[in-house]
């Protein structure tokens, strides 16, 4: 059974499917991250505190990373 599993997870078809699944998850994550950035913008305009610009900057960087990961994973896998 162990040898069968080993072969299965080395097959090009399975690896292609996994690559597609990983890219799909990262794609949805990137959309979600951009929505969070928009949400933080909305929140920061509603309640203005000294922390608001910091949170806003973090959300933008986070959105950038999420998009960057798609490109990185697409290139690596």
């Amino acid at each position: 059974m162990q040898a069968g599993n080993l072969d299965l997870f080395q097959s090009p078809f399975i690896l292609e499917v996994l690559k597609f699944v990983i890219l799909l998850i990262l794609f949805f994550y990137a959309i979600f991250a951009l929505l969070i950035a928009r949400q933080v913008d909305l929140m920061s305009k509603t309640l203005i505190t000294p922390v608001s610009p910091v949170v806003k900057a973090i959300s933008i960087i986070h959105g950038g990373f999420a998009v960057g990961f798609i490109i990185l994973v697409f290139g690596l896998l």
Partner: protein
Amino acid sequence: MFPSYTENPSNVCFEGQDPDETILLLLRAHPITNLSWIIPAVIIFFIPFLTPPILNNLGFGGILNLPATYISAALVINYLLVLVITFEGFLYWYFNVYIVTSKNIVDIDFHSILFKNIDLAPLKNVEDTSSNMGGILKAIFNYGHVIVQTAGASENIDFANVPNPHKVSDFILDRVHIAGGH
């Protein structure tokens, strides 16, 4: 650094605040309520450490023989999930606030992504306040609900899980009396 009960906060203002309106009390849910997202985040953080022995025991150890890049991508997804749970949890806690100003009571809620709700009631319309505290955690950490009943057709304002609920309730009524309400 991030207090949940602040009287006369400085450097804080909100959308729609009048120039002559001052914030007297700024409230958030008690920090202990953040456990509802901290615990899942911690569990997901440790999933990569727990998964290999579990997979081996179940006979699916072959998954671990995937190329290192695939394993790394799975790890990245796992920790992105931890990051997003933590960030969203903090955002909801930090920006869902209850404010008592010299004129109004304001309840700012962000229920989900891109959904904003602001309840606003003039102090003179406040008829009554009540506070309740029930449950082990609430009794230990002294937090609970404050319900502000307002006149007219407007809905009551509910301050959920705020610290010192009885003190908050009394604070609001004192301000109502000063403002010349009921």
